[in-house]
């Protein structure tokens, strides 16, 4: 039932006469595309500044403790002296070395950020991917769960839970924060997944019988990798801030030290009124700088990944 070839030339030249190679960029193209993100990243002031600040504090947190000559919680120094050669950042009213407290506290903050933010990102991605990809009743149920957790006054719950636990450590704090701060991430990832799921390449993968996991991690996630990174960074900053707040009101680790706890002690012992600025300024600046730098970094990364936002 072939009706073709009436006034058509015999079945052949089916493409433009020009060789298709001409339309393809030179062979270096894929490499150049890889470096494109790096190119814009290095020229983005927000990203570079934010990243540098976070990196500096991270280095202090990693290598700082090996320089401390005193135990963070030992009462072995002269009480309430300002910064000196022996006590770099001074001592507390009880003779504890503030430098040692600061570097250990910084380490704790990064750990809470990493595990709390990481846990929230994992839960958020899991729920967001499944809800967005599956749709229908699964989406309804997961979205309802997300909305419920979203409207629960998270901080009040954290207070109650933290107050009831007699022994609190960095780990449990990270877990609380992780399990309460995922909802907005889940919602954002769900809607992204939803829009990607309707693309034809996902359809092709589905038609070919690839499994749900293969499709989510092979087809959908790589197309929103920058988005996932941004989500994690925001959750990281949020977790650091929440942990500092919890510690500040006295619900922090009972067996350690953290930046928020340092602020808590300094306020309880009227460091401000006594003029002991060296007690509360370092942790205050560190928290503000880390969280602020993470947010600035986030804006910078957004500009790097999204060509529309690039300045030049």
């Amino acid at each position, binding site marked *: 039932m072939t009706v073709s070839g009436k006034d058509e030339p015999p079945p052949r030249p089916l*493409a433009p006469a020009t060789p298709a190679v001409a339309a393809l960029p030179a062979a270096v193209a894929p490499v150049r595309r890889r470096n494109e993100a790096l190119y814009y990243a290095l020229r983005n002031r927000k990203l570079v500044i934010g990243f540098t600040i976070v990196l500096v504090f991270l280095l202090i947190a990693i290598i700082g403790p090996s320089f401390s000559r005193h135990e963070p919680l030992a009462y072995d120094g002269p009480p309430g002296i300002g910064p000196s050669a022996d006590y770099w950042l001074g001592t507390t009213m009880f003779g504890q070395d503030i430098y040692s407290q600061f570097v250990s506290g910084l380490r704790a903050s990064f750990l809470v950020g990493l595990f709390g933010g990481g846990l929230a990102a994992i839960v958020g991605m899991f729920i967001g991917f499944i809800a967005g990809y599956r749709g229908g009743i699964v989406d309804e149920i997961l979205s309802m769960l997300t909305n419920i957790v979203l409207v629960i006054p998270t901080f009040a719950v954290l207070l109650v839970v933290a107050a009831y636990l007699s022994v609190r450590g960095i780990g449990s704090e990270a877990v609380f924060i992780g399990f309460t701060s995922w909802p907005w991430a889940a919602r954002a990832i769900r809607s992204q997944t939803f829009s990607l799921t309707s693309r034809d390449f996902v359809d092709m993968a589905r038609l070919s019988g690839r499994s749900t996991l293969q499709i989510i991690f092979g087809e959908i996630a790589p197309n929103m990798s920058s988005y996932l990174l941004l989500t994690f960074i925001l959750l990281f900053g949020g977790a650091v801030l929440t942990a500092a707040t919890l510690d500040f009101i006295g619900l922090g680790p009972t067996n350690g030290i953290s930046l928020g706890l340092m602020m808590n002690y300094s306020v309880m012992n009227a460091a401000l009124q006594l003029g002991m600025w060296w007690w509360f300024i370092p942790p205050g600046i560190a928290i503000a700088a880390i969280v602020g730098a993470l947010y600035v970094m986030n804006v910078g990364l957004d500009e790097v990944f999204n060509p529309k936002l690039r300045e030049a």
Partner: protein
Amino acid sequence: MLTVDNLSIAYRALSGDVLALKNASFSVADGEIMGLAGESGSGKSTLGRALIKLDNRMRHVSGTVSLDGETLPIDDDRAMIPYRFKRVSIVPQYAMSALNPTRRIGRMISELLTSRGMDFDKLRPELERRLLLVDLPVEVLTRYPIELSGGQKQRVVTVISTLLNPSLLIADEITSALDVSTQKAVARSLVEFRDRGFIKSAIVITHDLSILAQMADSILVMHGGRLVERGSVKAIVDAPMHPYTKHLIGSLPEVGVRYADRKLAGVSGLNAALEAMSSPDGDRDRPLREISPGHWVAAWGQA
């Protein structure tokens, strides 16, 4: 040979099921490229999808589909997996988005083939041969989709979809997003694939009758979820019988003719066609009748 018998497909909606395809019966012979024409919402894409995969919202109401004498389990998603791409394949509506932007094309093809249980390395020579056939260099396999033009992507997708020599290929609006000259190249490649036996038969879904006139052997016209006319390209274009087909043919743009200069079958023409189709008892559900060899028309009006 594809035989569709009395197929009805509904969409699930909050207010109940909406019948999008009503009692469709037709067949496509081996070696035939059948065009499926109709306006948006006429059910042509629904019909195309139903032959390969019902999505979550679609429900199989009645009817059977058989391909080469074998009944396709279209209402069983899992049972359909072995048929997809091997027996019945599809070129999706938007080829531009049918390639994963984060994967090199070769890797994507290899993944798709692996999940179909095929060995990529064994098929690679054939894949390369077919890429060359559609004037694509083998190097496209190492490229990202963003590095190809729209027409090149469309050809890559067509090659992927037909790589396993399916019995039936469904091409859903494959030319709609392309400019006229690229359209022609894509249409030609489909005809060539048929001539070379890569595909046995094809259903080309489009609202563009002029492209069908160039590449199809026969045309099936749909309106409102029903089949209204089926015949050879010549019969449909030169001697349409059904009022809706007449309206469709009358709406084709002609180069060099201004709207003001010709009586256009515009909205008023459509209304007239719809009026002619309606019967006093409100029943528009008439089966196709063969009025001359190879030319079927649904009854309309008071007939």
